[in-house]
């Protein structure tokens, strides 16, 4: 990337000034406290606002045009077409854990872009605000997301319910009960060992382990995804099919296939689960956007999905009960556009709305090969202090509800989480291939 940029700059005197700015932007420098404040405490100077928007109101198809600018294109369409109405609530601050901010302060000056990323240790790699004049701003945001704190150093989501729904009829075609685990092998900041789990000869950055609990035909299906630290290497994927009783190696191209028939691809997990190098990234703008952030204990709960210990899952609403019944709030967001690097990808473009404070993509608009809006992805983020006791004080915003709506097929996958930031439930042994073979 850097090499290409240099070549490009040397070949065009007319844009020499712009290139000089861009090259300077790539050069690492010590992060200032002001930059850290901008990055991690964007609401220090006040909450964002938008003309006509106030807490307590509902955005529906009659007034949505007024708020088009603070919605993703797919979510605007959802409201405009009557799928969903968005209840608006007050914006609140959701600061990330102090160790992560400290790590950013200590390490950000060592990070620079090369073929991929160089010098990264932990924390947010590029805490500076993205600039439209920086040709690598999009790529930096993608790295910020990759090394963000989604689920912290590790977490379990169990039970994790996915409903496949025909939105036209409301018919629930399938209900899958999952157990998901996430673990960062590297760049850890909160839970020992810090910063890395060793030995780790493959240099895996992150593992995702999935087990299906229900229904019967998928029961005991397990999936292990291992993402390399080296972003140029494709990750590894292993699938244990309970009915076959053996582990199958997956070609990781399957990450762009429908996951177990849902409306999500593996690549969609957590907003984007591919390699940074799989897409060409472009920073669009920073602006205020309505985001699905809320306090779990204040939301309406589903009458069916509940745990014996009293934990209740978020209710669904809207057309086909395809959307989480939650409140949204106006937040500072970096809009990031990603286009697949390889032809043949089922997606032509993703518009990812990265929360500036958390740096996770809570809403996305996904475009099909023809360039038409295909899917709307929503991940409701819950404040950890208003959730299960185990999450309180963790500082990790929790994926708590969500959906992937296929606007073309009128189909959706509604998802409900019970997330726990609990290292004891995420031992590294869970992320070994052999662990899959111990299944039933």
């Amino acid at each position, binding site marked *: 990337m850097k090499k290409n940029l240099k070549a490009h700059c040397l070949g065009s005197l007319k844009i020499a000034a712009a290139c000089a700015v861009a090259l300077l932007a790539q050069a690492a420098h010590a992060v200032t406290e002001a930059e850290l404040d901008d990055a991690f405490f964007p609401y220090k100077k006040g909450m964002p606002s938008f003309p006509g928007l106030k807490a307590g109101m509902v955005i529906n198809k009659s007034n949505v045009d007024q708020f088009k600018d603070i919605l993703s294109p797919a979510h605007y369409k959802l409201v405009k077409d009557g799928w969903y109405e968005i209840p608006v609530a007050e914006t609140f601050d959701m600061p990330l854990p102090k160790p992560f901010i400290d790590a950013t302060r200590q390490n950000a000056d060592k990070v620079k872009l090369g073929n991929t990323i160089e010098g990264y240790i932990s924390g947010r790699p590029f805490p500076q605000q993205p600039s439209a004049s920086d040709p690598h701003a999009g790529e930096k945001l993608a790295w910020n997301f990759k090394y963000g704190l989604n689920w912290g150093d590790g977490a379990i989501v169990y039970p994790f319910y996915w409903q496949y729904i025909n939105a036209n009829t409301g018919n629930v075609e*399938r209900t899958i009960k999952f157990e998901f685990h996430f673990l960062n092998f590297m760049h850890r900041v909160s839970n020992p060992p810090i910063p890395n789990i060793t030995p780790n000869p*493959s240099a895996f950055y992150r593992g995702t382990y999935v087990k299906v609990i229900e*229904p019967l035909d998928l029961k005991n299906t397990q999936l292990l995804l291992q993402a390399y630290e080296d972003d140029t290497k494709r990750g590894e994927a292993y699938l244990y099919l309970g009915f076959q009783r053996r582990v199958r*190696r997956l*070609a*990781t191209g399957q990450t762009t*296939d*429908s996951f*177990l028939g849902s409306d999500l691809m593996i690549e969609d997990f957590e907003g984007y689960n591919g390699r940074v190098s799989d897409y060409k990234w472009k920073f669009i703008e920073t602006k205020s956007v309505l985001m699905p952030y809320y306090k779990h204990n204040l939301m309406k709960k589903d009458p069916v999905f509940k745990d014996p210990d009293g934990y209740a899952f978020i209710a669904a609403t809207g057309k086909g009960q395809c959307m989480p019944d939650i409140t949204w709030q106006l937040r500072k967001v970096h809009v990031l556009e990603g286009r697949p690097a390889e032809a043949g990808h089922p997606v032509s473009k993703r518009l990812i709305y990265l929360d500036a404070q958390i740096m996770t993509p809570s809403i996305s608009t996904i475009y099909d090969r023809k360039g038409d809006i295909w899917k709307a992805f929503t991940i409701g983020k819950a404040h950890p202090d208003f959730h299960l006791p185990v999450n309180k004080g963790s500082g990790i915003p929790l994926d708590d509800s969500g959906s992937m709506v296929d606007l073309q097929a009128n189909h959706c996958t509604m998802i409900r989480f019970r997330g726990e930031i609990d290292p004891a439930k995420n031992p590294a042994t869970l992320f*070994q291939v052999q662990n899959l073979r111990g299944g039933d």
Partner: protein
Amino acid sequence: MAVPALAQDLPAMGESTSPWKVDVFYENDTRFRGKDNTGNRVGLSKFRNTLQVEADKNLSDGWAFHGILRGTYDGVYQLNQDEYGKSAGGAVNLENSGGQMVGIPFLRSPTSVPYGQAPVNNASIKLLGGPLAGNAFGFNSTVPGTVANPSTGQGAVPLPYSPNQGLRLLFDRWGTNPNGVQVAVPVRPCDKDSRGCADFGGYGDLKQSELEAPEFNSRLDFIREAYVKKLFNLDDGKQVFVKVGKQQVVWGRTDLFRVLDVINPMDYSRGNIYDEMQDIRIPMWILQAEYRMGASDSFQDRNVSVVWNFDQFRPNNLGQCGQPNVIIDAGCTFRAFKTLWDYGGTVGNFANLALPPPTPGLTSGAGNGAFLATDFGPHQIGIRNVDLPDWKFNNTQLGLKWEGVTANGFSFSVNGLTYRSQMPSLHMINTGVTNMFTGAIQNTTDLIAFDLVYPRVNLLGGSADFQIPDANLAVRLEAAYTSGEEFTNTARRDGYSRNHVFRSVIGLDRPTIIPWINEAEATLISGQLFYQHIFDHEEYAGAYGQYGMVDWKDNVTGTLLMRASLMNARLNPQVIFARDFKSHAFAMAPSVSYRYSDNLQFSIGANYKFRSSQERWHYDDQRAANPFAPFTQYPGQGASPGSAGLSGLVPLGGFRAGPIGAAWKEDEIQFTMKYKF
């Protein structure tokens, strides 16, 4: 979801607060076949109703229990009695190609004779005089009870009664054998007709009720799985995993055919090779212990596991003759030969007595020589005993596996296993046999009289998988080298040889977006090539054809699966192709499954087989094995036993045809419905 009402009635099994998790489903699998090779329209070939219960419970102290109970009832034996039930089979005629050519008047006979009325029998041979006056040909096909067949001339010696009813000709469903050996085989359930019934290892001696509901037997097969497991965390971060009980242990990485996946025997009677392996593996009582070492500086994952199969030996269930699925028709071959031993019987086109012999160098079969149907007496040819290994420590089976993943993602295993062959071997009886020409008890070789045994086999192998990202391919590899396997070998005096065997497979899986099928969901394309090489393979050119090992020295089998996913994976059309390259047999199995809901699924499918020519499957039938010179000598043969290679489809063609070829004309359509309560 669990079934609370059922779960509440289950025992506590420990102090855990975890409740029982119980799933129950019902499945109906109905299949129809068209005409078989005889022109007979088969009709219903399966009406199997399955009720399966899967139960899980966390026990105390970290142990967990998993159990699967399965009971099936296949109504095909009641609903299609003419094919598979009490009325199956009938009277048969066997070919007697030289009947009109023979010059001796009392041997002159029709070219097709009913079972039990062969021209070569006790009375006719006795008329030849000399040492043949004391011959032991002939059996009792005419008078039930203990009355001897008068034609045998053996006076009041009672002969078991084997009437011409409830029979078919061996291999007649998928082949013809003009001028070759023809053998009759009883096809009714063993409580309707006990001829040829013997326990070959869980099959072969089953009553109709046991065929209808095969899980309810002395081996408690209705317990598909019942094991406990626990993961022990060691202080150094390593782990020991223990799983003990009735279970399936899967070593392989392949579909449809097996290379390393040989710990559990298979039940091919359920659906030949076409059922999912997990449904046809026969679970065994096994102790598995794994030492999981996790990552090291050079490996991302390492573990060593021991598998001790301490269950009493069981072979593959090859299907009892008369069932809809009898893989490579072995079960029919065994039953036919067991009947021959116990009762005697007519063998069509067998004796070349007083007839023009075949012309050396010409292909065996129609037009080359002529033969007379022959009534053999009991205890002369066929299968005498089945030697099933008893339970004792030395007969248990032990495996060791070292498995790991390298730092660059190459997953591999090294496997060693000492086990009993799951396929039978036929050992010729060479001592104390009856010379049917003279009635004398003597020693000889090359006689088609056998004991059926299951030899011990040692296996050393390995497997690997990895991906080729640029091609979006997952690659699966397996290889195994065995010693101790036995193969039919007509060049050997005892009818078999013990050979080392190398098997391997390469499998390629590629998920591919095929836009005209589905732009969003990939279609899985999965191909496999299996290779088998038999070391020290023996095959020789005899005067009338090849003889030696019926199995091919080198063979390749290929499979191709294409499975598409539509409507959020609720509609899954797929097609499986399988090709046996040596036997020139080909199978195609298209199907479509539709999942209406989490609880209800339907599927329809079909299964078609193709072949090039049957002649490829002909092999030395040992008519020219010459066990009793001079009576069995063909021109050019010496006095010593040894085959001259006279060939035909029966009795070894099933091995040549393989599981695909030997199921030719068993084309099926199927409907399946599965409902989870």
